[in-house]
């Protein structure tokens, strides 16, 4: 939710780097950002127990 909130305040082509350590976000973050018209730059990376997402604002 805070990810979507932050994305709404950002300009086109800015990138949001989200670091999450809640396993559930592995599914929810990609599903929600794509559903709302943002672009996932690449597949989420997993380092140990942390998950990194890169999300680009399209417009």
């Amino acid at each position: 939710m805070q990810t979507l909130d932050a994305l709404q305040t950002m300009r086109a082509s800015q990138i949001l780097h989200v670091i999450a350590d809640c396993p559930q976000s592995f599914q929810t973050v990609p599903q929600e950002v794509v559903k709302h018209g943002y672009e996932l730059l690449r597949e989420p990376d997993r380092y140990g127990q942390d998950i990194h997402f890169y999300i680009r604002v399209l417009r």
Partner: protein
Amino acid sequence: MRFYQKIFQTYWNPYVAISLAGVLSALYFGATGTVWAVTGEFTRLGGHVLQWFGVDTSKWAYFNLIKMQGSPLTRTDGWIVIGMLIGALITVLLSNSFKIRVPQQKRRLLQGFVGGVIAGFGARLALGCNLAAFFSGVPQFSFHAWLFMLATAAGTYIGVKIVMTKWWRGKPNLKPVSQAQLQATPSGKKRSVQPWVGLIVILVFLAIVITFTIQGKHLLAVAALAGLGFGILIERGQICFTSAFRDQWISGRAVMTKAIAVGMIVATVCTFFYIHNGIPALIKPAAPSTLLGGLLFGIGIVMAGGCETGMMYRMMEGQVLYIFVGLGNLVGATLLAFAWDHLGFYNTLVQGWQPINLLKSWGETVGLLGTLAMLGLWWLSAHWWSRHYKFGRGLQVKSDAFVARPMKE
């Protein structure tokens, strides 16, 4: 190694995981005549704690209703809970996802505790949480489960309104990055002992199950194994009833909702055969307490960030918050046990209301088909909602402008 990675490095499709849980819960009902449930046992635990402190609970009507004999180690419901915790722990360890996670904002701990109290109180007022009054209640054709579900949906809506407020959320730690920083991500994967610990836990648990079998305590062995299966499924599928309701109100995400609807359809069909062949269905009163309980439960689980099952597997992932939620649940359930007769909750909200068995009131065929139709309708409405609801924009029936673009590459 490929197979191992597929099972443990990626989460399972929620439709598959929850359909398996539906089959398992029906099998468990067929084997024991009881249903997959957890909060009854939480309440008993609360009762045991009161007894340690010298409180005489033998005259409390609620404890007599849910039966306090034995300890969690000698009850099937106890082993369901233990099995679920261990099952989730095992897959967390095998997938190397265990980490002590303390929320960035300390206020979350208090919020989780308060939410846990409200959810525990509500769940027991309705005589069951998201399992007994919902996931395994609907397949029992108990009408109260439908009331609970509607009230929970309304409750989660109120809960979302609460957690969306500024004073609840506080400030997140978010800032944009540049292209250069983007390249410099941490690298390297450390080898971990977690999978080995997981393996040891499996062996110890299996030894316990084998001991039960040798001692002739077959029901406990079945409960422990079923609990283990449930724990594995809720963790691997990240099955979260809270998010099934909450995410729809917040962002319109309905994957979990639809998966749960499908899982319940599977459970309903499987359970029907057992009931048809003579195992008595477990029907609970459809009373104002069901509605009020569901409403409170819905508000509570959103405030806590997890329902009774979601809280259990997240606790095993090392999320400290959910220890507070779990404690809140215990306190809430015990408070309800007190309020049941001492504060007159039973007399005002339950007494005089009858259990309604849909298979009896509608007849077997209509009861089964009607239940399946209602579940199908729920799936469809969730699907419709997810297509039209957008975060920050609300419900937009006309599909203008904001269309998701496909992912590149």
